[in-house]
């Protein structure tokens, strides 16, 4: 079974999971213009952007020889929950005969989950799977910790690009992890690498902190969001995302008695503006904006795929939050038509406004 998966964020983690289960892993290529073109060509015109890019990713993985695609499902009510079915039908109509394993929320579909687990278990025992999951989870946690450091460091690097190079190197280190001890070592090595990056000293009062919120795929996948973190970093802003893979696991996969994820706090903060969970990450988006405002961030970048159902609701409400909490928010809808220069200009103007505001406040 040659397995592959959608490309999102730090793919080393998913790769590790299937490798430890002794599958042959076909790593999908980093989404490129070709990926996007392939996806757009074969998707419904008005489908959301992640559906198109993931379809492109699947096709490229299949071209490389993947026979099984593994993905997470959704519990609705946003369109992401129906990706699996749509992708399967489109791939079939294109003549690709593959198996698509969709892990729906296990609380919703227990028998389906058990069946799927059996499929990927590859003859291994449940105990082994448990051990593997633990390694992968700890690895995700550890990598997210390092990534958060890099997102801060990037704003102050002396030599442009040194953080990106360090991150590449760190991902390679984590790629060779086999046990929990390895993770501890990898983290130590990574920290050493980060300590070697030369930085410019900037006083606390002059630092700019920007939060990135929005739909999970465009927030996490940098090849799709035009490397927004790097754009912000290059302009001297520290960045924090609303989504990290380990936090996603905390909230979606672990039972509540194991972990009490921060996302519950966030949801409480969003309650005032969106009463119910309406799908996707709309409620989290407004909650995170409130959270960033309370933590005295300087601004928020709101990313969403064009015509994303839940994010349109949060976009409608953002002006009210901006007013109440006095925090600047810029919304960037992203799709295949989005141009780099446009985003760069808008972000630059946004940061200029923030810097001016800060200067006035300090003076």
């Amino acid at each position, binding site marked *: 079974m040659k397995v592959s998966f959608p490309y999102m964020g730090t793919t080393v983690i998913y790769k590790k999971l299937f490798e430890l289960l002794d599958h042959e892993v076909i790593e999908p290529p980093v989404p490129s213009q070709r990926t996007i073109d392939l996806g757009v060509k074969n998707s419904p015109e*008005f489908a959301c952007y992640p559906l198109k890019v993931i379809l492109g990713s699947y096709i490229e993985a299949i071209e490389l020889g993947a026979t099984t695609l593994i993905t997470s499902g959704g519990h609705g*009510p*946003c369109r992401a929950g129906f990706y699996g079915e749509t992708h399967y039908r489109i791939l079939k109509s294109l003549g690709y005969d593959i198996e698509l394993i969709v892990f729906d929320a296990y609380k919703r579909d227990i028998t389906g989950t058990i069946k799927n687990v059996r499929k990927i278990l590859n003859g291994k025992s449940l105990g082994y799977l448990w051990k593997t999951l633990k390694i992968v989870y700890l690895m995700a946690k550890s990598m997210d910790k390092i990534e958060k450091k890099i997102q801060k460091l990037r704003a102050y690097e002396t030599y442009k690009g040194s953080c990106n190079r360090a991150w590449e190197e760190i991902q390679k280190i984590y790629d060779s992890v086999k046990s929990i001890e390895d993770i501890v070592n990898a983290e130590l090595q990574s920290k050493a690498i980060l300590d070697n990056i030369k930085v410019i000293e900037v006083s606390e009062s002059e630092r700019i902190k920007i939060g990135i919120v929005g739909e999970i795929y465009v927030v996490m996948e940098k090849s799709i969001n035009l490397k927004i973190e790097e754009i912000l970093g290059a302009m001297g802003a520290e960045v924090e995302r609303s989504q990290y893979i380990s936090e996603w696991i905390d909230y979606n996969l672990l039972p509540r008695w194991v972990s009490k994820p921060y996302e519950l706090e966030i949801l409480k903060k969003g309650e005032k503006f969106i009463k119910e969970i309406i799908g996707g990450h709309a409620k989290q988006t407004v909650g995170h904006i409130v959270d960033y405002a309370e933590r005295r961030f300087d601004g928020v970048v709101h990313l969403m795929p064009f015509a994303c159902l*839940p994010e349109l609701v949060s976009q*409608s409400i953002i002006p009210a939050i901006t007013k109440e909490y006095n925090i600047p928010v810029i919304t960037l809808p992203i799709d295949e038509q989005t141009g780099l220069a446009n985003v760069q200009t808008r972000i630059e103007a946004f940061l200029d406004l923030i810097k001016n505001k800060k200067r006035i406040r300090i003076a």
Partner: protein
Amino acid sequence: MKIGIPKALLYYYYYPLWKVLFEELGFEVVTTKNTTKELVDKGIKVSVSDICVPIKIFNGHVLELLEQSVDYIFVPRMMNIRKGEFFCPKFMGLPDMVRYCIPDIKKKLLAPNISSVSDDISDAKNYLPMCDILGVSSYKMRSALKKGKVAWEKYRRLSIKGYTAKEVLDSMESGNNIKGDYKGGFMNIGLMSYVYNLYDEFISMGMVDRLRERNISIQTFEMFNENVLDSQLRSMRKILFWTFSNKLLAVGYKFLKDSRIDGIIHITAFGCGPDSLIGKVMELESIDYGKPFMTIRVDEHTGENHLQTRVEAFIDMIYRKKVMLKGEANIV
């Protein structure tokens, strides 16, 4: 006291229930007129630019009601009408959007959470939270809901007989007998469209009348019993999360299998998320079934002529196919 119900979105499915409910409680029910270009323009001004037309139109109707100085505006939060299914996120966040997009509406908003296990949403638990705001007793609410339910069931019965929502609502409003239905046209077209797209003259541009003028009979999803529709989807690996989209897809499958239906027209609004997926599924399935299928996508800029030309071409194509199959060359 006046209660306003915007003539948009689920007005076209639940109005009889809500109207009787509020009238029985002793309030005056005010609704808006048909959608016009001016009303849409008003709605656009307060809406996010990328959102779908029905929501923009809804906002327009709410503004219209505000101008008529009603005391309350009824914007229910539609959560689910099936177990494990939901409404489109925009319906679920509708009161939140209205509250923060339209100025000066906060105190006038009546937004109960509606959730139910079937299309019948007259369960008292949904409406009891409104008792305090409206100052009515829960007993009165319950008995008003019972009467509302009767009215809504009558409405559904007439729909299932084959009358369009517009015909039924008009006759209920005026108290006149319903006009005869249009069965037995020379061609049958299945219309896949949400009620708020099809019966809003601005969005569908009078599609129903346009087709009937040419002696074509139509069928839509609300002309079928919910059990009939549910049974269509049993073979699917995973059904959608949105009840009304499921209904649309189910009726699509029904049209595909029904040999009496000659063609299917899918009318959708620009930016409709669920429809973008259903459309693709139907596009693929209609090839397998060999049935003509066309999508018409409408937004606030769509011109009428384009629609007319496309519908005519579609009808002509089906007509020729029919003639060729029958071998009745003399008709041409």
